[in-house]
């Protein structure tokens, strides 16, 4: 349902042959040095990471200064406190924490004399059924493929999903999220529509499926909606609503993860 604007957008780009793109120079302001927190607790055994960086000016390279020397802990609802240690500059991790479904995790970050907290509930995992590659309807002649994720949505429970798509090990730069507003209790086939990396036979494709809570879903959905900035759509961009207080850039998510890979055939 949320892909309709995208369909219309792609359609129009195909048709408006005279429309064209040009890289331009813009004088943009720079409000930088703001704290960015990205905290993720997963259900997979292994180190869990909370990354602290600051934002940089648009004209800079995509390298983000780490925020070092912060105190980072996570509590679960049973009262355990897990202390994260700085394993690399700005990267705080812990190895003996594995998230469990339906548990609430609370993150505490203390840096530069300020305390930040956020809570997230790890949803019950929904199994990633399969991934398939099929003809891309928008460019079928050139043998381009699109990737579809299949899973069974549990009935009567509110679910939110996020997907990461990798083609030959390179992440596709698109946000893919879906919820079950329109698909509750069904066998769902969700197309990962994108125009970032073209997929052809022989490519190795990996999909990571995450089950996320509602606040984190709204965070990503806001970013996804801002992606459609072409003809036929687009919302006024703004920083997505974070679940961290006091407000900073970033989010804290307790989520389940699973991956599946596929080599695309003719």
């Amino acid at each position, binding site marked *: 349902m949320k892909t*309709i*604007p995208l*369909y*219309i957008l792609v*359609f*129009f780009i195909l*048709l408006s042959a*005279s*429309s*064209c793109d*040009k*890289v*331009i*120079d813009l004088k*943009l*302001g*720079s*409000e*930088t040095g703001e704290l*960015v927190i*990205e905290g993720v607790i997963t259900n997979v055994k292994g180190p869990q990471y909370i990354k602290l960086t*600051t*934002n*940089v*000016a*648009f004209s800079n*390279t*995509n*390298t*983000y200064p780490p925020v070092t020397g912060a105190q980072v802990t996570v509590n679960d609802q049973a009262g355990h406190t897990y202390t994260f240690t700085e394993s690399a500059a700005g990267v705080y991790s812990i190895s003996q924490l594995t998230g469990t479904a339906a548990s609430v995790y609370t993150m505490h970050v203390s840096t530069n004399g300020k305390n930040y907290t956020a809570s997230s509930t790890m949803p019950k995992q929904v199994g990633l059924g399969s991934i398939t590659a099929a003809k891309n*309807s928008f*460019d*079928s*002649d050139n043998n381009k493929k699109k990737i*579809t994720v299949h899973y069974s949505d549990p009935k009567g429970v509110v679910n939110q999903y996020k997907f990461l798509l990798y083609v030959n090990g390179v*992440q596709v730069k698109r946000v893919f999220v879906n919820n079950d*507003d*329109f*698909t*509750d209790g*069904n066998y769902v*086939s*969700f*197309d990962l529509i994108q125009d970032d990396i073209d997929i052809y036979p022989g490519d190795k494709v990996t999909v990571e499926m995450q089950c996320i809570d509602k606040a984190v879903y*709204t965070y*990503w*959905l*806001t970013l996804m*909606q801002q992606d459609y900035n*072409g*003809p*036929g759509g*687009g919302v*006024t*961009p*703004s*920083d*997505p609503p974070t679940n961290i207080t006091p407000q900073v*850039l970033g*989010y804290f998510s307790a989520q389940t993860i699973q991956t599946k890979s596929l080599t695309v055939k003719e």
Partner: protein
Amino acid sequence: MARFLLTTFILLTTFISYAQKKFTISGTIKDTATGESLIGAAVRIQEISSAGTSTNSYGFYSLTVPEGEYTLIFTYIGYETQFQKISFHKSQVLNIVLNAKTDLQEVVIRANKPNNDNVSSPQMGVEKLNMTQINQVPVVLGERDILKTITLMPGIKTAGEGNTGFYVRGGASDQNLILLDEATVYNASHLLGFFSTFNSDAIKDVSIYKGGMPAEYGGRLSSVLDIKMNEGNNKDFTVQGGIGLIASRLKVEGPLVKDKGSFMISARRTYVDFLLKASSDTSISGSSLYFYDVNAKANYHFNDKNAIYISGYFGKDVLGLKNVFGTNWGNSTGTIRFNHLFNNRLFSNTSIIYSNYNYVVQSFQSNESFKATSKIMDVNLKEDMQYSLGSTHTLKFGLNILHHDIAPGDISTTQVSSFNEKHVEQRYGYETAAYLSDEWKASDQLTILYGLRLSGMFLLGPGTFKTYDAAGNTLTSNAYGSGSIVKKYFNLEPRLSASFAINDENSIKASYNRNTQNIHLLSNSTSSTPTDLYVMSSNNIKPEIADQVATGFFKNFKDNTYEFSAEVYYKWLQNQIDYKDGAQLMVNQDVESLLTYGTGRAYGIELFLKKKYGRFNGWIGYTLSRTERKFDAIDNGKYFPARQDRTHDVSVVGIYRFSKRWSFSGTFIYATGNAVTYPTGKYNVGGLTTFSYSERNSYRQPSSNRLDIGATLEGKEHKKYHSSWTFSIYNIYAHRDPYTITFRDSKTVPNTTEAVETSIFATLIPSVTWNFKF
């Protein structure tokens, strides 16, 4: 309210009958050749300079003056002025036919007092467009377009290139009431905004009210675009049409009963899809992309006192990709009007109006198949009366009951689909209004148009109606039975405008008006999409309110050849709507929980210089303005520029008749770029470069400018038929007008980001159309 109107009416009538001995002259003014009634033609009396009126929408006029010997003057732009001497000792009917000017006569010096309506009328903030001019203004792909041409007037701004949406004096595009023969047109765009739903062949008269709105109009905050269809030639059958690059059109009109009734049918269809079929790419050749529309109208005059008009519009857009998805949307409207003349002073019109907008979005892929539908359907009953009260008062009053039936969204699916069936409760409601206005010629110099409109909104059951807190959580939820009132709102809307004529050529005008709006378009996209969602005022959504004051100086010079005006306005807006982050508006029962409310203000100055007659004519418009909004949730409740805030806006239109056969035209536009939000920093989350933002709309898109030219070659004169060629070049110096700017990871330099400007028409676009008439 009805009783109040009646009482006032009786009182005023009684008052008049005891006054001096007066008689009434009334009738209709029509075109000699086609019998089309002329709207807004002026009727004046040479001997009494303060007496005068103009014809209403049906070409009817009525003027009450003391007995005497008079010379009546009938004028209408583009027509020869007619003088008629009358000996006035009893009330009488005088029907007038006027001859359209031929080209040669245009340069003849006009005798006596030419039309200086723009100076003398108390109405301000109104733009009337002449269809001849609209037809000569060059447009993209040769499809002449009313909605694009009106954006060349000061104070009216286009929503963007390739978009028929428009903003009037800082209002949003859903704050314009677009009427086609009185029926509301909800989505006035074809092909996602590239063309408007109005086929110029079928259109007779276009007026847009930007301010000082007369009391007979209401229901929207910013403007009323009142479009009237042709009635059809009641003398002869004619066929006319045109063949263009992307669309063709055909119109047939003629008498039903000579001089008593006529009909008109006009249709248009695009054929881009035939070109697509020829494409070698199967995904393009399997797609559909077209629209068509049909306008039809018929009228019959039973006698001098009774006439009936029936008109309708039907349009549809179809867009789809074979076996993937399909969507279609369209408006249909129907209007039945009955004119009745109670006596030669009291004119009445009763209208029954139907309007429907719906869309269907379908996915055909087996596992994702669904069909989503939505509609808004109105049935409207209107009674409008016009009463001529002496030579100095014209009263208008009426009642209006409009029933809305809105189906916000339904999804139906197949067994194998990922999607579930979903149904959002249908909503019903009434918008009602009563109004009274008087145009009072207080003295030779002062004319006052004042009135009052009472609007009522009733939201009705059945259904479950909720209220939400600021965070969007449900506070209360109540079930209502069928027909019970869930919420009602009443608003009084005073309307006042006055003109003070310094002399025949100069006047000063001022106006104040309040407008309210009870039906709101929800769309968090920045351009027009077919999936428009309308909601009524409710427990959560309060009526939008706008108060506007305006004042202006109007001047005509060189025998009214030139018109100049300068208007200043200030507007306050209440209960404006914006959306929360991540709002999912489509097929959502709780859509009202996703809204936030704020206020707005808009102010500006509009300068307009027009040359009306001569071989060379045209206009220059300039607007300097500011439009701001204020929401608690955005920028800590500070005013921020609305997207459509455009500091400078210039348009120049020139039409030059070179010879009997050749004429040339050109338009130039310049506008400050949209107010937009650009990143002020970047960071990385989820492996993606993500941008951070500071204040809303604090940047400007690059300014836009463009020159279009056109030429018309009239065919050789021929007894039986007439033909012409229209050539146009859109964007002649191939300027790249920025449509949108996006930010992304650079495709060329790794580990950096870039800003990318997208233009829709970055090249010049030539077109040619062949028109015929016989």
